[in-house]
C-alpha cells in the first residue's frame, strides 16, 4: 500500500520534471513577450512533489548497530544503550533516512549467571532512532551473525538470550558451578523493524539519487561520511574497537 503511494509520488515527481524541462527549453526559443506571458503557468516546478512526505511502512526492516557493550553481568534491567542505523532506509531509490541516525535501545531483562549452573540472561529491545528530530520507533530486534557474544544461545523476536549454562550440577558441588554470562561487544549488529509507519520528507532529489545507487552494500567505513542526522562520531571509534 505504502509502496504504491511511494511509487505514485515518484511518478508525480518524474512528471513534474518532464513538464518543467520542456517549458524552459521552449522559453529560450521564443521571444521575450511570449515568455512573459507563458512564464507564470510554465515555470513552477512542482517542488511540492519533491518535498511531499513519504511514508515508510510499518515493519520495514532496518539494520542497526549496538554502540555500547552489553552483558548479562554488565547490564541491568531497564538500562538504556545507544544504537545507530547502519544501512540507510531507501525506498524507490530515495534515501529517506541516512545511515548514522542514532537512537536508543533498552535492556528489558538482565540477570547474571549464578550458582547451580544458572545461565546468564539478557533480553534486549530496540526502542527508536532519532530522525529529523522525531522518534522512529523500532521493534522486533534480533542480533545478526555472531553478535551474541562469546556465549550464545538464541534470539526470539526481541533479542532474548540465555547463555549456554554449565552442565546440570550434581549434589552440592553444583552450588559452585556457575553458568556462562553473555557478552555483547559494542559494534554488534542487529535487525529490527519499524513499529509504526513513519512519514518523512526526502532530503532532496540529489541526495536521494546519491543514496539510491548503493544503499545496502556500502562498506562500514563509509558510514561516517553518510551520517547527516546525528552528532558526534565517537561512537564509530568505539564500535570499531569493539569489533576487533
Amino acid at each position: 500500500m505504502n509502496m504504491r503511494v511511494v511509487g505514485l509520488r515518484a511518478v508525480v515527481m518524474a512528471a513534474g520534471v518532464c513538464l518543467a524541462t520542456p517549458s524552459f527549453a521552449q522559453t529560450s526559443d521564443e521571444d521575450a513577450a511570449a515568455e512573459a506571458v507563458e512564464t507564470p503557468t510554465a515555470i513552477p516546478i512542482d517542488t511540492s512533489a519533491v518535498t511531499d512526505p513519504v511514508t515508510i511502512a510499518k515493519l520495514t526492516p532496518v539494520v542497526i548497530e549496538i554502540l555500547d557493550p552489553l552483558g548479562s553481568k554488565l547490564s541491568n534491567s531497564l538500562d538504556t544503550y545507544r544504537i545507530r542505523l547502519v544501512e540507510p532506509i531507501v525506498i524507490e531509490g530515495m534515501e529517506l533516512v541516512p545511515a548514522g541516525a542514532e537512537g536508543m535501545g533498552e535492556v528489558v531483562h538482565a540477570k547474571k549467571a549464578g550458582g547451580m549452573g544458572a545461565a546468564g540472561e539478557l533480553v534486549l529491545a530496540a526502542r527508536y532512532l532519532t530522525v529529523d528530530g522525531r522518534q522512529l520507533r523500532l521493534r522486533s530486534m534480533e542480533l545478526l551473525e555472531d553478535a551474541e557474544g562469546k556465549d550464545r544461545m538464541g534470539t526470539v523476536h526481541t533479542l532474548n538470550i540465555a547463555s549456554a549454562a554449565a552442565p546440570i550440577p550434581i549434589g552440592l558441588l553444583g552450588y559452585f558451578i556457575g553458568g556462562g554470562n553473555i557478552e555483547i561487544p559494542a559494534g554488534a549488529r542487529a535487525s529490527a523493524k519499524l513499529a509504526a509507519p513513519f512519514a518523512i520528507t526526502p532530503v532532496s532529489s540529489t541526495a536521494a539519487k546519491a543514496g539510491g545507487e548503493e544503499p545496502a552494500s556500502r562498506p562500514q567505513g563509509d558510514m561516517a561520511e553518510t551520517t547527516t542526522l546525528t552528532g558526534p562520531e565517537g561512537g564509530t571509534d568505539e564500535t570499531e574497537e569493539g569489533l576487533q
Partner: protein
Amino acid sequence: MKIRNVLVASLLVATAAAATPAMADDKVAGSEVVIPDAPEGTGQIVFFRPGGAGFAMGCSVNENGEKISSLGSGRYFVLRTTPGRHEFSVKSEAKDVLALEVEEGETQFAKCKIKMGILMGRPDLAPAKEDEFRKMNKVQLVDADDMGPAPGALRPEEMMAAAVPAAEAEMEVEADAAAE
C-alpha cells in the same frame, strides 16, 4: 485446480485426525504442537517446562502477583497478552523474575527449569528458543483447572479453536506446494 482442492481436502481430513490428539490431553511431540497465530493487537509467549530434575515440583508462573498458570513437568501453555514489557515471576524457596518484550503478532518462548535448592527445588524462568520447545519428545498442554485466575493463558478449547484455522492455512500452503 481440482487436484489442489482434493489435496487440501485430504490433507485437512488427515490433519483433523492427526491434530485432534495434540489438542486434547494426550502428550505429543513438541514438533506436533500447533501454536495459533497471535491476533491483531496481541502477542504470545509459550511457556514450557522440560522434564528433568524436580519433576514433582510445580512451577507457577505469575504476573503482577496473580497466577497465570501452573507448569508441571513436560507441560506448556500459551499466554496471549498485550504488546510491551511484561514481568513474570516464579517462586518457591526463592523467587525468580523474567521480563520479556511482547511484540504484536509474534510468538516468543520461555522455559521453566527446576534448579537444586537447599531444602527444595528452585524454579528458574528463562528465555528460550522455539527449537527447544519443538525438540521435546513429549509435551502436554496444562489442564484448564491449573490456569488462572490471571487472564491470558489459552484454555484447551481456545487452543483448538484457534489452531484449526492455522492448521488449515498450513495445509493449504502444503497443498499449493504439492500441486506445483
